[in-house]
């Protein structure tokens, strides 16, 4: 019933044929008859569109026309291959980077948790900002107080992290990180098992049997999703436990663990200290809001409970530490650290997108000036403004679709990189994937870009059509077009400047860290973790282990020295052992009035430690195997301690009073150079060393240091063999040279720098192409002018310099705009996040120089072209 396109065309052809025949019959000659008929009929496509519009809706009509325009655009774009490829790749970079970062942002910040009613699940923590601790965790007495006094919390779940040596699953002994939880933990978290059961109230108490739940990641990776593990009995250090279930995939918080076990499996949890010492804090606390209670109500109640606990036990909450309670939903707790960095990244990629779009806009603008003739012809034939825009839109749609497709292909590997990067801030980033919603984002960005780009070129206005040479479609660049081109180029430079300055700032930070000289040669030092089978359980075999191990390893060929300790520099920073400190007190040292006694970090080391580490002994002697803290307590102090306590005197043979416990005063037998094992950039460090045997933290010794003559990695197999021979169940973990450790610690900074430099590099590349394009275009348009000037005596050199300066001027304007815009952004950001680190003068100047240089390089080609203009040709060209 509905006439189709060929029907309509045939009806029009019929009309014309009849008209022509009648005119010829009336005596006109065929040629003029044909012309008159066509003239009288009018613009046939417009008539056909009107006819079709009777039958089809307006949308169909526009879509039809767009499809036609798209086919046309495809043809005309394939004719301009280089240009098209440039535009598509530019858009792909912009779209790809945005979709990749967005998928990470989505998985970290936007995706809901699997936990049931996650908005009622809260995380409770104590901060002690006075001593620089954001999460002090809780002790068992504190948790019991909350449990007995809080009414807004339906149930509390507690979680402490313990390292177990697991023996079972038919595998070698391995060290695993395990969570130790109470029976209500899983109920509070709102998690379900995928296999077997989780832990519940019956698993609480000292009489319960050991029960273990495997995390999904551990079960699928280490155990290959073997369902028969349920019901197996394994040994966790000294105690047996039965595997009762597998947890569903969920966000591992507070720590990525392999197992979650009930309290009875951990010998440490049955120590009297664990149960009664209010300051023995190692447990994280979760809560589920009681029905009807709001987060605010819980915050108010728990804070007042906490305040009264602090009043009741002042000795456990020093005024200086400034202990406070923080309550947030688990979700906020998970995403908070990643939020800032991700939003900054998202902004940076958005800037790249703007640069990409403005660059493509430039190219399109330059191209559309060349097309002005064609557009004018279309307008003269009766194509309305809508139709002309549609033609332009079709072309930009085709390009943006190409860009989006390529961008999404790029997004896949980018997501992998970006999620690994963001995983350093939030564990949720690990399961970021490219999926449908990201495809929608890519499509959305493409459409936005297409629409914006379609409105960039100016349409030939009715009064200007006459001025354009229709047949030739020749170029006559207006000042307006040129100004637009320059504005876009300036925007690109400005955006690139902001990104480059940011990248420069990060590079400066990283370089400072990387070149920070530790002062010690640590390339030859191998560090190995030899964790005890269950934390803090000291038994007879353990104390015999280190002397035996160091003696036998020392006999290996290629080993220059072996020592034991408690802290691997930098790798163990922030660990609970490394945080143990002692208040310094010594005979002959009187702190000034109101001065706090300085706190030194406490390290237990074996004889030979300083020699292995290459730390010089400045006075006195090293420990020997005969030094025992319990009979004749001795200590070695770092240079900073010696200077602080005895500024004008010799520290050797002075007595150091411990403020920890009731230990006897220690005699100082040596002074060593400072070794800051917490910071890459070395600073003055107060450290007190005690011998491993009989010391306060000596029982925690679990690190071996070996100085190798040759390649340290060659020593790993024989060392492992010796350790297993001494104790078959001993786990041997993470062998690495201290140099590698240092490099590893710098990974987040390096990644930050890499990501920003990459974005800055992309921006720079696009901006250079943009500036070069603008200048090339402007030179092309001024051919005649340059020809005249050459003819009246300008030298090619003058023209060359002028074009070069033109490029540099664009860059200078862009940089000025970038400084202003960047300053505004920083002000806004400072309002949102409090403080924002500003790039130093060096990064700013560096970024500016790079851009000016790049602009000059980009100007070279157009400048050369300007200076090589052939005068005669220039006159003929227009």
């Amino acid at each position, binding site marked *: 019933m509905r006439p189709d396109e060929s029907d309509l065309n045939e009806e029009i052809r*019929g009309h014309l044929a*009849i008209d022509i025949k009648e005119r010829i019959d009336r005596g006109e000659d065929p040629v003029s008859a044909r012309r008159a008929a066509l003239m009288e009929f009018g613009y046939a496509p417009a008539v056909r569109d009107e006819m079709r519009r009777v039958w089809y809706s307006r949308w169909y009509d526009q879509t039809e026309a767009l499809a036609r325009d798209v086919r046309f655009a495809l043809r005309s774009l394939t004719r301009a291959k280089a240009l098209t490829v440039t535009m598509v790749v530019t858009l792909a970079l912009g779209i790809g980077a945005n979709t990749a970062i967005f998928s990470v942002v989505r998985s970290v910040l936007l995706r809901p948790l699997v936990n049931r009613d996650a908005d009622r699940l809260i995380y409770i923590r104590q901060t002690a900002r006075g001593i620089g601790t954001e999460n002090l965790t809780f002790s068992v007495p504190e948790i019991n107080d909350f449990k007995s006094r809080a009414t807004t919390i339906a149930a509390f779940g507690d979680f402490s992290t313990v390292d177990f040596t697991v023996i079972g699953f038919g595998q070698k002994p391995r060290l695993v990180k395990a969570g130790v939880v109470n029976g209500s933990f899983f109920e509070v978290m709102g998690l379900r098992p995928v296999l077997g059961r989780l832990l519940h109230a019956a698993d609480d108490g000292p009489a319960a049997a050991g029960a273990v739940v495997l995390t999904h990641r551990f079960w699928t990776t280490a155990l290959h999703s073997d369902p028969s593990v349920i019901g197996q009995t394994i040994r966790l250090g000294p105690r047996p436990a039965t595997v009762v279930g597998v947890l569903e995939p969920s966000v591992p918080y507070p720590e990525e663990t392999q197992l979650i076990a009930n309290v009875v499996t951990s010998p440490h949890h049955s120590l009297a200290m664990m149960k009664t010492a209010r300051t023995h804090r190692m447990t994280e606390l979760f809560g589920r809001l009681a029905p009807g209670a709001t987060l605010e109500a819980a915050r108010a109640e728990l804070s007042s409970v906490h305040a009264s606990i602090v009043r009741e036990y002042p000795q456990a909450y020093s005024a200086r530490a400034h202990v406070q309670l923080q309550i947030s939903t688990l979700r906020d707790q998970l995403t908070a650290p990643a939020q800032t960095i991700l939003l900054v990244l998202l902004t940076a990629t958005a800037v790249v997108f703007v640069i990409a779009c403005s660059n493509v806009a430039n190219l399109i603008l330059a191209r559309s000036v060349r097309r002005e003739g064609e557009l004018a012809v279309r307008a003269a034939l009766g194509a309305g403004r809508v139709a002309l825009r549609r033609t332009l839109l079709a072309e930009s749609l085709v390009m943006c679709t190409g860009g989006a497709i390529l961008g999404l292909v790029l997004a896949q590997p980018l997501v992998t990189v970006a999620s690994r990067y963001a995983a350093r801030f939030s564990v949720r980033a690990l399961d970021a994937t490219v999926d449908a919603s990201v495809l929608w984002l890519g499509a959305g960005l493409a459409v936005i870009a297409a629409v914006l780009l379609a409105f960039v070129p100016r349409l030939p206005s009715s009064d200007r059509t006459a001025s354009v040479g229709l047949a030739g479609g020749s170029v006559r660049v207006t000042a307006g077009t040129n100004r637009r081109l320059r504005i876009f180029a300036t925007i690109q430079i400005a955006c690139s400047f902001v990104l480059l300055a940011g990248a420069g700032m990060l590079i400066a930070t990283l370089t400072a860290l990387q070149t920070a000289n530790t002062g010690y040669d640590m390339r030859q030092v191998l560090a190995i973790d030899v964790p005890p089978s269950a934390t803090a359980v000291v038994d007879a075999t353990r104390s015999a282990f280190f002397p035996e191990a160091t003696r036998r390893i020392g006999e290996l060929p290629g080993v220059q020295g072996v020592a034991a300790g408690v802290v691997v520099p930098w790798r163990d920073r922030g660990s609970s052992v490394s945080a143990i400190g002692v208040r310094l007190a010594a005979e002959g040292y009187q702190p000034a009035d109101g001065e706090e006694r300085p706190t030194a970090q406490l390290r237990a080391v074996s004889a030979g430690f300083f020699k292995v580490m290459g730390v010089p002994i400045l006075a006195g002697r090293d420990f020997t195997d005969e030094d025992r803290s319990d009979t004749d307590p001795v200590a070695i102090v770092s240079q900073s301690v010696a200077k602080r306590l005895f500024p004008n005197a010799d520290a050797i043979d002075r007595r150091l009073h411990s403020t920890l416990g009731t230990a006897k005063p220690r005699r100082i037998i040596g002074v060593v150079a400072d070794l800051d094992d917490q910071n890459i950039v070395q600073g003055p460090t107060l450290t007190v060393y005690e011998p491993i045997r009989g010391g306060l933290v000596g029982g925690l010794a679990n690190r071996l240091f070996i100085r190798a003559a040759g390649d340290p990695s060659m020593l790993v197999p024989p060392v492992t063999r010796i350790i297993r021979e001494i104790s078959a169940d001993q786990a041997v973990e993470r062998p690495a040279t201290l140099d590698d450790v240092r490099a590893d610690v710098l990974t987040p900074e390096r990644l930050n720098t890499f990501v920003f430099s990459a974005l800055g590099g992309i921006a720079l590349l696009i901006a250079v192409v943009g500036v070069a394009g603008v200048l090339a275009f402007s030179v092309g348009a001024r051919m005649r002018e340059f020809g005249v000037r050459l003819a009246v005596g300008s030298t090619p050199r003058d023209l060359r310099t002028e074009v070069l300066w033109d490029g540099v001027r664009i860059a200078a304007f862009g940089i000025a705009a970038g400084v202003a815009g960047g300053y505004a952004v920083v002000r806004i950001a400072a309002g949102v996040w409090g403080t924002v680190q500003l790039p130093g003068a060096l990064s700013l100047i560096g970024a500016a120089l790079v851009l000016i240089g790049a602009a000059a390089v980009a100007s070279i080609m157009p400048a050369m072209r300007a200076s090589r203009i052939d005068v005669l040709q220039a006159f003929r060209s227009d």
Partner: protein
Amino acid sequence: MATHADDQRLELLQGTLDMLILRTLQWGPRHGHGIGQAIRTQSDDLLKVETGSLYPALHRLVKRGWLKADWGVSEANQRAKYYRLTAAGKAQLVREQDRWSRLVHAIGRIMNPAPGK
């Protein structure tokens, strides 16, 4: 060619084109070109219908069911679409004609008031 100068030509009143088309088809089917010519010659060249209005109007009338279109071969030996009135179209023509004469009468009363009334 006997054409009037443009200033003498009349603009079609809004809504009258449909009626004119129906009227020209009263004596048998015609193709689009023929309908346009008929309106022109029967109005002594005072009315000229643009193709851009005529063809969409024809299609609109077909869609409403007042006309029916069939392919045929014209005197120029060219396939052309011939339009003819349907029964509904004839009824519509009567209605439009009636409406038109009442409109002319009413407007005439205003423009040329009867003396003494």
